[in-house]
C-alpha cells in the first residue's frame, strides 16, 4: 500500500440531502480527507452511467454517489431509480472484476454530517488500500 498515494475521488451529491449533509459536516468542523471533489446534482437520479464511466476513464480512483435515504427523496422516487442504475453499473463491474469497490453508493441525509464524514473518509481509506486506478495508466485508456 503506497503511503503517499493521493487518490482522486469524484463525489456526486444530491442537492437536498447529501450536499446539505456535507455542509453540516463542514459547519461542525469535522475532519475530512482532501481527496474527494464534490459535484453537485439536483437528484442522485441525474447521474447516468456515462458520467460515472467518464470519471473512471479520466483517471478517477473512486466514484461516490450520495443521495437521500430511500423514501426521503426530495422528488419522491428519484433515488429508487438511481439505486437501480447504480446496481447495474456495480454488477457490470463485479461481473468483470473491474474493482467494483471503486464505485460506491451511500445515503446521507441533511442531518447526517457525521455520517458524511465517516462515509467519505472510509471510502478514501479503502481506495488508498486498493491503490491507483489502472485506468490512470495511459496504456489502459
Amino acid at each position, binding site marked *: 500500500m503506497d503511503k503517499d498515494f493521493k487518490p482522486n475521488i469524484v463525489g456526486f451529491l444530491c442537492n437536498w440531502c447529501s450536499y446539505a449533509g456535507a455542509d453540516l459536516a463542514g459547519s461542525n468542523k469535522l475532519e475530512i480527507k482532501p481527496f474527494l471533489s464534490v459535484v453537485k446534482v439536483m437528484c442522485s437520479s441525474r447521474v447516468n*452511467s*456515462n458520467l460515472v*464511466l*467518464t470519471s473512471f*476513464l*479520466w*483517471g478517477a480512483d473512486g466514484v461516490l454517489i450520495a443521495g437521500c435515504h*430511500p*423514501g426521503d427523496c426530495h422528488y419522491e*422516487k428519484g433515488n*429508487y*431509480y438511481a*439505486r*437501480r*442504475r*447504480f*446496481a*447495474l*453499473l*456495480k*454488477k*457490470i463491474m*463485479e*461481473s*468483470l*472484476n*473491474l*474493482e467494483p469497490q471503486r464505485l*460506491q*453508493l*451511500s*445515503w446521507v441525509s441533511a442531518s447526517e454530517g457525521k455520517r458524511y464524514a*465517516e*462515509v467519505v473518509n*472510509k*471510502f478514501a481509506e479503502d481506495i488508498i488500500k486498493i491503490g491507483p486506478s*489502472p*485506468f*490512470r495508466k*495511459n*496504456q*489502459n*485508456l
Partner: protein
Amino acid sequence: MTATENIKIEKPTKGASIPAKEGIKKAILGILKKALETESLDAIMIPVKVPETESYAWVLLKDTVLLENANPLPPVMTIQGGKVLSDLTKHGKINKNIAVILRPCETRAAVELFKLKQLHFENISLISIDCPGAIPLSEYLAEPEKNEKSFGNILDKWDKDDSVRAICKTCYRFSLPTLTNTPASDLHIGLSGNTKDDVLLIPITSKGEKLLEKLDLKPDSSLKKWEIKINEIKKIKSQRRKKFNQDFKTEISGPEKFTAVFDGCINCHNCQSVCPICYCQQCYFDSATTKLSSEDYFRRAKDRGALRFPLDTILFHLGRMSHMALSCVSCGACEDACPMSISVSQVFSLVGEQTQQAFNYTPGINRGETLPLQDYLEDEFCEVETPSECEPTNSNEVKENV
C-alpha cells in the same frame, strides 16, 4: 399490441405435425406457400438467398415464386431479425397480415425492442423456430455451398455441431418457453420433433391458433418427445455454458485482462451498429458529447505523459454495456461484425447474463414484463449500498424461465 392479440392460450400440449421427409426447409416453405396462396397471410418476412453472393438478405415477399430461394433457418445470421422487424414496423401500423420467421434470439430481441417501443406486433404473426445455431458469417462466405450442406442435416447436430459460432455452442435458449402470460411469439416451429421426419407447428397465442385454423392444420400430435429432446439438449448446453463462463471469466476479468481484450479494437463501432438492442438514433459515443477540445487532450497528455487515441474505446464498450446489458439476448451479431475478431459477443453475453440474474430478469421471453430500469421496488439492492445497513433483499438466484 392490443389486448386481444397476444393472449396466452393454455400451455400447448399439442402441435400440428408436418411431414418433413425432404427436409424441414421444404416442409416449412410448403406451409408458407399455402399460407400466401390461401391469403391466410398477405406477406412473409423471411431470409432469402442472394444468388450472386450466396449470402442471405431479409425480404418481405408476397410472390410465392420468390419462396424458392427463401430459407426459414439459414446457416448464417446476416442481419438480426429483431432489427429487421423494427425497421418494418417502427414507422406506423400495417393493415396487412404479415408473418415473420425469427430465431429465438431474434424473437427475444424483437420483444425487447417492443418494450422499448421500437416495434409493434399489430397484424404481425411472429413465428419462432428452434435454432441449432449459425455458422460464423466470414467462414460461411468462404465456402457457402459446403457450409450450406453441412448445415443441411441439422437434426443430427444440435449440441454436437462445431461449425456454429462459439456463442451458439453455449446457447441454451435455442428454443422458446411457451408459458408466460404474454409470450414472445405467436407460433413456434419445433424441430427435432417426434420423428426425424416431421416438424411441429406449436400454437402459442390465439393469433397462432387462428393461423393454423386458416391453414386447416390440426394441432393433434403430442409435444412430449419434442419437449424431452429440447430439455436434454438444454441441459447439456447449459452445463457447457456454465463451464465456458467460468473459464472465460478468468480469462478476461480484471482491469488489465479486460482492457487487453479490447486492445485490438479499431473503434469502428460495427458491434453497435449491428446490435439489435442498440436502437438509439445516434449513438452517444459517436456524438461530440464525449469528446474534448484539442487543447484539453494536449494538457492531459502532458499530465499523464502519453494519451492513446481514440481515447474512448473502453468507455465505448463499457458504456454500451451499461445501455444494453440487461436486454442482451446473446445473438452474436456483434461478433460476426467485428473485423478484429474480438470475442465481443462472449464478453457482452457474460456480462448480460450476470446483470440479468442480479435483476432477476430474462430479456425477450415475456412481452408484458417491464424493463428493469423503468421500474423499482422500495426495498431492494441494499447490498449495493455502503455502508450497507440491511440484509440483501434481492437474492441473486435465477428465476428459471425456460
